[in-house]
């Protein structure tokens, strides 16, 4: 069996409000092989976003280890973690989180500004990513000129443009109608099957979860 791309070992996470401990994740262990498409389901407040944030390196576990591509990300400094994220993580959010003042093209280009690529090379990557999500003709549009589904497709292009190790999607269809949901799901499926992207997706929607190969459930901070 090949080495898993993600290894979560006995991870617990608590938040502290004043001196009150709010336990969110209890002793989670999880292994995800390369090129897998995993859906994480569970009621709201069960800790799904928290787990995704830990994998993205934007939050720290209270205890346990997180290895992504063999690297223990809990040991990285703030600055190194930012660089690591830019190289390894592509994130998709429920509300797309595009920069309203930037065009689709410029939004997708953002992660590439952290690389050494030339302007010309960046253009090639951005155009490829936007054509994969079927928006090559909308490059000059601003987010407010796009539908919700189109905005999320731009966000997906932004998530994959730098060819990250992991794509993390937090309820990517949570704010979309059925038709757009199907579009987004087929796009993620294609990224997984055709381009071999490892995808971890949080969702409430059983319909969306069907696109995934593995479905895991999180309830009250426990994985089943």
């Amino acid at each position: 069996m090949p080495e898993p791309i993600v290894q979560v070992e006995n991870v617990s996470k608590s938040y502290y409000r004043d001196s009150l401990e709010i336990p969110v994740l209890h002793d989670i262990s999880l292994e995800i092989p390369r090129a897998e498409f995993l859906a994480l389901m569970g009621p709201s407040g069960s800790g799904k976003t928290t787990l995704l944030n830990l994998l993205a390196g934007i939050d720290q576990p209270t205890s346990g280890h997180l290895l992504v591509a063999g690297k223990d990300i809990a040991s990285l400094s703030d600055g190194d973690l930012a660089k690591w994220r830019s190289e390894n993580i592509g994130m998709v959010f429920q509300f797309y989180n595009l920069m309203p003042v930037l065009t689709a093209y410029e939004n997708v280009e953002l992660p590439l500004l952290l690389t050494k690529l030339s302007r010309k090379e960046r253009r090639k990557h951005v155009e490829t990513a936007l054509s994969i999500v079927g928006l090559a003709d909308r490059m000059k549009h601003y987010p407010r000129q796009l539908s919700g589904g189109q905005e999320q497709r731009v966000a997906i292009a932004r998530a994959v443009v730098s060819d990250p190790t992991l794509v993390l999607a937090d309820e990517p269809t949570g704010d979309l109608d059925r038709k757009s949901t199907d579009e987004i799901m087929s796009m993620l499926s294609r990224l997984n099957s055709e381009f071999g992207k490892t995808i971890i997706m949080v969702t409430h929607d059983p319909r969306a979860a069907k696109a995934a190969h593995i479905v895991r459930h999180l309830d009250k901070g426990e994985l089943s």
Partner: protein
Amino acid sequence: MIPVSYTVRNIINHKITSALTILGVSLVVFVFAAVLMMSTGLRETLVATGSDDNAIVIRQASLTEVQSIIPRDQADIVKTSPEIAVATDGLPLFTKEIYVLITLLNRHDGDKANVVVRGVSDKSLELRPNATLVEGRMWREGTSEIIAGKSIAERFAGCGLGETVRFGARDWTVVGILDAGGSGFDSELWGDIDQMMDAFRRPVYSSLTFRLADPSSFVALRDRIEDDPRLPLEVKREKEYYADQSRSTAGFVSILGTVVSIVFACAAIVGAMITMFAAVANRTREIGTLRALGFSRLSILNAFLLEAMLIALAGGILGIAAAATLSFVRISMTNWDTFSELAFNFQLTPGIVLRAILFAVVMGFIGGVLPAVRASMKRIVDSLRAV
């Protein structure tokens, strides 16, 4: 780095808040630049009054002609100095003058102001290449005729061409108008020195002015005169003499203006800070997203600091543009170094533009630094949860 277009378009997108901040900064910069333009105008006007190759002699330790007294015998000794150039008539290009302050009434509002009356000789005009007679004619020897600098002619009752003005217990008729190119002589009345000494009952001169045949001989001449025990006199280059006359007034205007500007600047900085804190709060989720994409804390800090500084820069440019229109304004105020009215223009120089712009950008930096630090210190997970 976060693209500059992100910063610029955010400024443009928030038109009203940006415009208010820009306006605040531009007002401060306007005041700051106006004051600098005023003190520069004052100084330049006085500096322009002096010529490079002229020297002026006044009594030792008297800062200006007002306090200076030079007896006739001392004046005659100085006149024989070999360094003095020769005029077209073969005589030394040298003049003894008296300098008296009188009070006149403003033609328009009746306000009193001090005006300089200068008793001059036939060489006085030749010694001042920047001054020319533009209307009427020169005064005639032995008469109560005067010529008026053009600022005085416009502003004081009885000083226009053909008018009569009373001082020194006599009526004087204005027969000519002097244009001294915006320099200090535009604010003086000139008449025959003998008539003036008579009218004011002054047996002594105020100053001696002469052209040097060779400007490099100045030091030797000065040292000789100042070392001569018979001559308790001081020799200065004319240009330096007039530059010194602007020192306390220009300095005072600068200091007052700087204090006022700093007080105003504090208000503008607070305004910029409020604008930037609001910008940071409104864009919390964008900040979280950028950080999640891998942008560092430093790049967030830079983006917001740049935004504050660009807004301030726009305010600076607007303020300078408004101040530039003052270049066409000529004002008149009392020069406290000489206690007399002096008319001058606000003067914009590249140095003032640079200082005003720098002042604006520094305001932006100070106003932007706290909000930018706050933006960069936010925790990503908290930012992403913001709506």
